[in-house]
């Protein structure tokens, strides 16, 4: 799967320098349309298992976006962690709570209008602010050019240097966080 994605990354890299990024744009818009549709299905579908499946599409789309943005390592992590772990967790959750596997008409509460209003308001405000601020700024990938030089064309190494350099303490703290989550989740979820 990852191998299949490699050309995409190549495609994106070819777009560096801002001269010719039509193919990347085409891919982006197709993926974006899918993602939005899938995301809407996640929050509207009346089948809980379908929601999880639509979520897979959204998360994969996010991974594709990362590739378009030349963040291969993050993209791979995204796929591994989300598809490999989180969605599986969701499926386990669905099974363990005996959720109805077919259609169910009681998945939503009576607050749809409020939800729509809040969602639209947020979109409008954020979109207005983004458009006013960033306008037509195009992506240049300048920052990556520098890190490539430093790390011998190996951005993953540069990423590692970043994590184990300036972000060392947060990284170590994260390990404690995962341990704590593990301990607590076991205590809460187990029968006793």
């Amino acid at each position, binding site marked *: 799967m990852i191998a299949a994605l490699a050309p995409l990354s190549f495609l994106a890299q070819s777009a560096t320098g801002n001269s010719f990024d039509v193919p990347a744009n085409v891919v982006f818009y197709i993926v974006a349309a899918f993602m939005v549709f899938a995301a809407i299905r996640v929050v509207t579908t009346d089948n809980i298992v379908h929601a999880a499946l639509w979520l897979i599409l959204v998360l994969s789309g996010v991974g594709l976006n990362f590739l378009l943005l030349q963040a291969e390592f993050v993209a791979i992590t995204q796929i591994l962690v989300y598809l490999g772990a989180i969605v599986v967790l969701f499926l386990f959750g669905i099974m363990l709570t005996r959720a109805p596997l077919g259609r169910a008409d009681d998945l939503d509460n009576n607050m749809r209008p409020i939800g729509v209003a809040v969602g639209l308001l947020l979109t409008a405000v954020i979109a207005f602010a983004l*458009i006013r601020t960033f306008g037509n700024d195009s992506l240049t*990938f300048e920052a990556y050019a*520098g890190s490539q030089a430093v790390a011998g064309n190996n951005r993953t190494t540069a990423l590692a240097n970043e994590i184990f350099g300036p972000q060392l303490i947060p990284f170590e703290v994260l390990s404690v966080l995962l341990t704590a989550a593990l301990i607590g989740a076991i205590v809460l979820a187990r029968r006793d």
Partner: protein
Amino acid sequence: MLLNQFLLLAAILFSIGVYGVIVRRNGVLVLMSIELILNSVNINLIAFSTYHGLGGQVFALFVIAVAAAEVGVGLAIVLLIYRNRRSVDIDALDELKG
């Protein structure tokens, strides 16, 4: 490619996620909606990191890891509630109020 096309996509995902957490009654579905919100943040971070270097990517990795932990904890709490109430309808959790 424009910066804004990614940012706007993220904003839309964010809002859809917000809609989801407001209207979904099933605890697991609420957690899924939360994932939409967190992923929109990651798109933002990666898009900005093309300008500012790898800090954003590191941030995104941390967010992914934390999201995994949060989902785990969330599902544990959902399971706990399911065990006591035989239901994951979070809309019915209104014993504490006022």
